């Protein structure tokens, strides 16, 4: 059971999209959309609070797994995340990713909030901080133009080393 009171927001990304809340919701929760803007990953989610949630590689292997904490279409979608598909990463504590969708004039305001239950080193936070702008810029392009970009990205400098260090020292247990 995830005690959400222990989690603090660490990374927030906001984008405005010329679309409707329903379409943004669809883009966030349907595989046909996610594989266009989320580095090729397909989302696989059981549409209810407590449901299972995955991002899968094209061959079906699991990249991210978690549980749905909140499923309120078309306004709020919250999940726990464990990145299983990358070496060592699966041993880090889960984080929480929340998407909030609001009408803003004729556009939609999408807010992504990544929250953690421990003092995550900056080098590890840098991973999400470089990934989210690419993912969410691309989601906006997919909804507005139907044509995704192809953004290639390597982990930021010091990222894998910081993950290895955290997994061996387990600072969240202190």
């Amino acid at each position, binding site marked *: 059971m995830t005690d959400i009171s222990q989690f603090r927001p660490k990374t927030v*990304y*906001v*984008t*405005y*999209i*010329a679309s409707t809340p329903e379409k943004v919701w669809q883009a966030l929760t349907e595989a046909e959309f996610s594989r266009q803007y989320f580095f090729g990953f397909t989302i696989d989610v059981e549409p209810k609070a407590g449901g299972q949630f995955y991002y899968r590689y094209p061959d079906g292997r699991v990249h991210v797994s978690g549980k749905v904490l909140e499923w309120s279409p078309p306004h709020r979608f919250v999940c726990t995340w464990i990145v299983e598909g990358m070496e060592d990463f699966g041993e880090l504590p889960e984080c929480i990713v929340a998407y909030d969708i609001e009408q*803003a*004039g*004729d*556009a939609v305001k999408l807010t992504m909030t990544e929250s953690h239950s421990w003092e995550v080193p900056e080098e590890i936070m840098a991973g999400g901080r*470089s990934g989210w*702008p*690419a993912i969410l*810029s*691309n989601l*906006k*392009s997919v909804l*507005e*133009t139907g*044509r995704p*970009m*192809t*953004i*290639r990205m390597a982990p930021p400098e010091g990222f894998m080393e910081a993950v290895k260090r955290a997994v061996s020292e387990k600072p969240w247990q202190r």
Partner: protein
Amino acid sequence: MTARKPKFVYVTYIASTVDKVFEALTDASISRQFWFGFHVESDWKPGSPFALKRGDTTMDSGVVLLCEPPHRLSYTWHPEYESMRHERPSRVLFELEQLKGHVKGQVKLTVTHDDFDDDSKVFESISGGWPLVLSSLKSMLETGSALEPTFSEEDIRKIEAICTQ
């Protein structure tokens, strides 16, 4: 741990070229299209004045710190609003990087706005403003249409009334 000074960083990827993005950030009539009716004004020489205006009213003033088309642009930022005018100028930096991977080209645009005092009201205001302005810029360059203003004409008149007091 020492308290960190407020710093706003926003990255967006745009299917376009660095020349087009740079032009949009520095051309008065193009900026008016995506900046919700505001426009930039400057000769873009380092040391020259910079202004963000609505019509003839200056909303934010500053000085050009750096202009290296089409990759880097920086100016100071001083709101003329009554509630924020007492704060000293902060600093904006735009960095543009051309990437491959889209038929129209792809640009990574990084906006860094820093050099604020602690508890700056301007910091709070720009943290809400840049995502809106930069989302609108991306829409304009990718689709030909910027986003619609999310504030009413009445809100803008109020801001202008404060500015011109």
